[in-house]
């Protein structure tokens, strides 16, 4: 059974400039131990999707439709109280900035023990024990001593490890990670990716890894969903999507990444820029930037269609493999 099954999720923001459909009909599912890469550029709705799953969207935003089935329960229908007993317990979130998770004026010990005891009736000593084990698990040296430290006494990479440790404290079934390594250096990023990879494998925790970095997804995720203007435009097993993209946007993104043996050549850039989410075009949102566009695309928006085992695509004129690298 899948751990998470999101169906037709709609999260809208009701602003003065109009209704912004930040997430507009997103669907995906995730099995235990599986890693989903949710990829997109800024404003594509990838983070709002993550926040919606944890019901952390603030006004003027609201989840207005769809189902979020977590182990058979629809999260959208739970009371705030029920939701709070899941958050940080069965479902955890890791943010880009670890200081979103950590309280700067409390010792790590206080914060971690609190997170355990909020959900389990255990003694302080038992909670502390668990905190030490988890800190050691994410590679923090001498964890028993470090518990007494305040967040500012850690380096950026260490702080992110602590945030990850807090996410792991109660052995969640699902972790939503929102760009957790974007602000880190390459060597620190790869340390954290290594830890996370092992964790998903060993504990069976399902993981949603939200990022703009396709290269990270290539190395980490089992499957990938590419978002553009609030919708998933392409999804499928990571290797299939990255080696043979079907959507012109995915193709464009891949072409935009420098540094795989095409030194000095012009990058195949996507013209224009991300659309204004309050005034999306009538048809396909990508149409104004697309090189395969025609009248159909401008007239109506394409629906998502299955183009193979576990592969979905939202395009009237997908790139077919027989065309070669056109």
């Amino acid at each position: 059974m899948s751990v998470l099954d999101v169906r037709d999720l709609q999260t809208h923001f009701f602003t003065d400039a109009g209704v912004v459909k930040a997430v507009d009909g997103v669907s995906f599912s995730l099995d235990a131990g599986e890693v989903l890469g949710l990829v997109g550029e800024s404003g594509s709705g990838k983070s709002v999707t993550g926040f919606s799953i944890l019901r952390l969207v603030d006004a003027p935003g609201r989840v207005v439709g769809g189902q979020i089935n977590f182990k058979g329960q629809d999260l959208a229908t739970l009371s705030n109280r029920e939701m709070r007993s899941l958050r940080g317990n069965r479902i955890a979130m890791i943010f880009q900035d670890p200081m979103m998770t950590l309280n700067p004026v409390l010792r790590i010990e206080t914060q971690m023990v609190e997170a355990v005891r909020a959900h389990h009736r255990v003694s302080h000593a038992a909670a502390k024990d668990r905190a030490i084990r988890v800190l050691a698990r994410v590679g923090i040296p001498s964890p028993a001593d470090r518990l007494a430290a305040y967040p500012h006494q850690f380096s950026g990479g260490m702080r992110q490890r602590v945030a990850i440790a807090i996410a792991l404290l109660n052995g969640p079934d699902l972790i939503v990670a929102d760009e957790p390594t974007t602000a880190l250096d390459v060597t620190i990023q790869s340390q954290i990716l290594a830890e996370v990879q092992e964790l998903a494998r060993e504990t069976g925790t399902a993981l949603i890894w939200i990022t703009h970095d396709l290269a990270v997804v290539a190395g980490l995720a089992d499957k990938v969903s590419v978002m553009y203007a609030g919708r998933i435009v392409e999804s499928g097993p990571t290797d299939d999507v990255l080696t043979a993209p079907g959507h012109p946007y995915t193709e464009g993104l891949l072409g935009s990444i420098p540094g795989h043996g095409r030194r000095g050549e012009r990058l195949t850039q996507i013209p224009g820029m991300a659309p204004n989410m309050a005034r999306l075009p009538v048809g396909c949102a990508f149409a104004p930037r697309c090189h395969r566009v025609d009248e159909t695309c401008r007239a109506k928006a394409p629906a998502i269609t299955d183009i193979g085992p576990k592969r979905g695509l939202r395009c009237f004129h997908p790139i077919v493999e027989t065309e070669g690298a056109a």
Partner: protein
Amino acid sequence: MTAMLELNGVSRRFEKKLDGVERLARRLGADLRETCVNAVDTASFTVARGEVVGLVGESGCGKSTLGRMVAGLLPVSDGEIRFEGIDITDARSARAREKRLRIQMIFQDPMSSLNPRMKVADIIGEAAVYHGLTNRQSVADYVDQLLEKVGLDRAFAQRYPHQMSGGQRQRIGIARALAVKPEFLICDESIAALDVSIQAQVINLFQDLRRDLDLTYLFISHDLGVVEHIADRVVVMYLGRIVEVAPTEALFDGPRHPYTQALLDQVPRLGAGRQVFRTVKGEIPSPLNPPPGCHFHPRCPMAGPRCRRDVPRRITEGDHSTACHLHDGGTE
């Protein structure tokens, strides 16, 4: 090929002197010392005319400090910087000042480097008028030409920075740098804050400008993929010191310094399939208290006793130079 830019043993130290209370506390026996960070430690390299040199390293390695010294935004503690043979380390002479103008810088965050209260036309035109490259009557045309060069519509001249997207603002930053007709551009993480598709547009713009205006770049970035794409030669820094300099292909095909090897090993790549991420152990040490000898030795799998003792020299073979004892008589 003579060097356009030449750095000889350039260093930059940041010192924090003790204040009155701390001096008193020390006299009473407290363990307080003046702290000193060697942000850049005797850096030497050259940039030839028309070349793109990539400067890479992780946060705190001193790459931005080095760029700022070349741009003249930070004074140099030791060493000298020569531009076309003229010493520009201290820009007091008119000749040095004139050379300095040929060097311009493009910053990481265009929002904090553009004055939010100025219109684009003034942001771009101000320096050009001041330096006499155009005058008040013709500055509008001058700005239009520059906007066209960086791929923006001339209507942008009447806008303010907050009315534009990140990619457009970065183009304004580039236009402003180009306004004084520079020959040498320092790009300090200039595309790091941009989305992937916009990043590609700006990289292409840099390539076009290089060809059209005959520019030379010092391209500072932590993103090895970008540097591999754009640079002819690469300088790798670690904790204030240059550890390796080599032509791009040689560096990416056969890195010699263990740090460079580790760095290249850890870059997530497309087309590599599912990766097992391997890691360099440990963290980047504090520059306040760097390890003795080779700064990298506590994290280096090949370190020997000599690495803990002696600072490695940079040994040059052909056009590839490395500061590592492994290439200079062993680590014993």
